[in-house]
C-alpha cells in the first residue's frame, strides 16, 4: 500500500514538473512503447479505432491475382429480416451463415463452408412500402474510374466508393434506366472462371426498359463484348436479349422488360444453380416464398424460375447440365 502511495506521489511530482528528466528523452519513448504495446495487445480495438471495423472476407483465398472485368463476382441481399432470410435460403440451398467482425447487421452465407453471398439488415424506411432486393456486384479494376464513366454515360452513383479490408473497394451505381448494381475492385483479385455448383450463383440478367441504350452503357463501363441474340418476341411484343461477355464468356444477359413493364422497375436478377427448378420452386413456397415466374424451359435447354423470398426479394433458380438432352426451345 505504501509502495503504491509512493509511486502515485512520485507520478504526481513528475507531472507537476514537466521539465524534469526531459520529456523528449524519457516520456516520449515510454509513450511510444506503451502505444506499441497497446497495438500488439489489442489489435481488434486498434483496428476498429482506425475505421476499418467491417471485415468482409476476400473474394478469393488465397488471392487469385486474376482480373475479370465485368464478371458477376458477388451478391448481397439487402433485407429488413436477415434471420428470416437465413431460414429461407438455408432451407432452399443448404447455405449456412456466420457473422463478420465489426458489423452486427451483416451475415455471410456459406456453401460447404465457403462464402457465397452476403446479407445486410436494413430497415424499411418508415411509412414506405419498399421491397428488399439482391445487389449484384460486378468486377472492375478501378472503382473511382468506374464511377466517373458511369456518370459520364448517364448513370448515377448511389453510394460512393468505400474500402473494406480484404474485400476491396466498392461503390453502388445505377444504370441509365435506374437498375441498381455495385462495382467491386477485389483486393486479392477476382474468382477464377468455373462452372458453378448447385447452390452457387450461375447467371445474372439485367431487365431494362431500353436494352439498346443499356448495352452502350455497360459496354462503356465494363468493356463488354455485346451479342444481340435474335428477338423472339415476349408474347406481348418483341423482347430483346443481349449477351454481355468478357474473356469470351457470357457474363450476363440484358433483356427488355416485358411489354407491360410500365409498373416494373429495371433491375438485376441473379440465378442460383439448382438441379431441379420445379422442385426448388415448390420448396421455396413451402419455406414462405413465392413463385414470380413459373419454371419454364429457356434458351440454354434447362428450366429456370423466378422466385421471391419471404421478404419479397426476387431471385432466380436455373438448371444447368452439360449432359442435358433437352433442346433449346424454338
Amino acid at each position, binding site marked *: 500500500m505504501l509502495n503504491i502511495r509512493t509511486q502515485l506521489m512520485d507520478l504526481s511530482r513528475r507531472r507537476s514538473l514537466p521539465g524534469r528528466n526531459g520529456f523528449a528523452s524519457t516520456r516520449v519513448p515510454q509513450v511510444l*512503447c506503451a502505444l506499441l504495446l497497446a497495438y500488439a495487445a489489442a489489435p481488434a480495438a486498434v483496428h476498429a479505432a482506425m*475505421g476499418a471495423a467491417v471485415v468482409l472476407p476476400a473474394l478469393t483465398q488465397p488471392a487469385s491475382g486474376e482480373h475479370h472485368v465485368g464478371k458477376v463476382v458477388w451478391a448481397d441481399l439487402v433485407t429488413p429480416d436477415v434471420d428470416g432470410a437465413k431460414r429461407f435460403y438455408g432451407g432452399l440451398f443448404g447455405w449456412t451463415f456466420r457473422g463478420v467482425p465489426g458489423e452486427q447487421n451483416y451475415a455471410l452465407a456459406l456453401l460447404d463452408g465457403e462464402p457465397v453471398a452476403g446479407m445486410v439488415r436494413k430497415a424499411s424506411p418508415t411509412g414506405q412500402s*419498399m421491397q428488399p432486393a439482391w445487389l449484384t456486384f460486378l468486377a472492375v479494376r478501378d472503382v473511382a474510374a468506374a464511377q466517373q464513366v458511369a456518370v459520364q454515360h448517364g448513370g448515377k452513383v448511389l453510394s460512393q466508393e468505400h474500402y473494406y479490408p480484404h474485400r476491396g473497394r466498392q461503390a453502388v451505381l445505377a444504370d441509365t434506366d435506374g437498375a441498381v448494381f455495385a462495382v467491386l475492385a477485389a483486393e486479392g483479385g477476382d474468382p477464377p472462371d468455373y462452372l458453378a455448383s448447385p447452390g452457387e450463383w450461375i447467371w445474372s440478367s439485367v431487365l431494362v426498359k431500353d436494352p439498346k441504350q443499356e448495352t452502350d452503357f455497360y459496354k462503356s463501363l465494363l468493356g463488354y463484348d455485346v451479342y*444481340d441474340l435474335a428477338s423472339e418476341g415476349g408474347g406481348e411484343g418483341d423482347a430483346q436479349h443481349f449477351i454481355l461477355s468478357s474473356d469470351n464468356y457470357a457474363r450476363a444477359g440484358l433483356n427488355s422488360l416485358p411489354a407491360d413493364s410500365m409498373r416494373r422497375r429495371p433491375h438485376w436478377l441473379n440465378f442460383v444453380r439448382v438441379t431441379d427448378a420445379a422442385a426448388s420452386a415448390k420448396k421455396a413456397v413451402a419455406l414462405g416464398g413465392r413463385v414470380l415466374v413459373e419454371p419454364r424451359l429457356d*434458351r440454354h435447354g434447362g428450366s429456370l424460375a423466378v422466385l421471391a423470398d419471404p421478404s419479397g426479394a426476387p431471385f432466380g433458380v436455373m438448371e444447368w447440365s452439360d449432359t442435358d438432352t433437352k433442346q433449346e426451345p424454338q
Partner: protein
Amino acid sequence: MKRIPRILTGAAVGVLALMSLPGCVAEGYGGGGDVGYVGYVGGVYEPGGYEYGRWGSGYRVGPPRGGVRGSGGRPAPSIPRGPRGGSGHRSGNGH
C-alpha cells in the same frame, strides 16, 4: 521492474485513447454509421406492390449454350464450363 506498471498504464491509456478517437470510430457496413448502405436512398429497395409481370412464351433470359449466333452472325459465348481448379478455397462467384 518499476517500468512495467508504467508501461502497462500507458498501454491502457493508449488503448482508451485510440478507441475514443471520434474521427476514427468505425462506421457500419456502407459507412456513415447507418445500417446498410448509407446515402443510398431509394436504391436497393424497390417500390412495393409491383408485379413481376408475365413472361411470354418466347421470352428468354438464360445464357446460350454456345454456338448460338447473334444478329451479326457471331456465335455468342456461353458461361464457364470448366471445373473448379487448383487447391485454393472457393469464394465469390465462379460464373
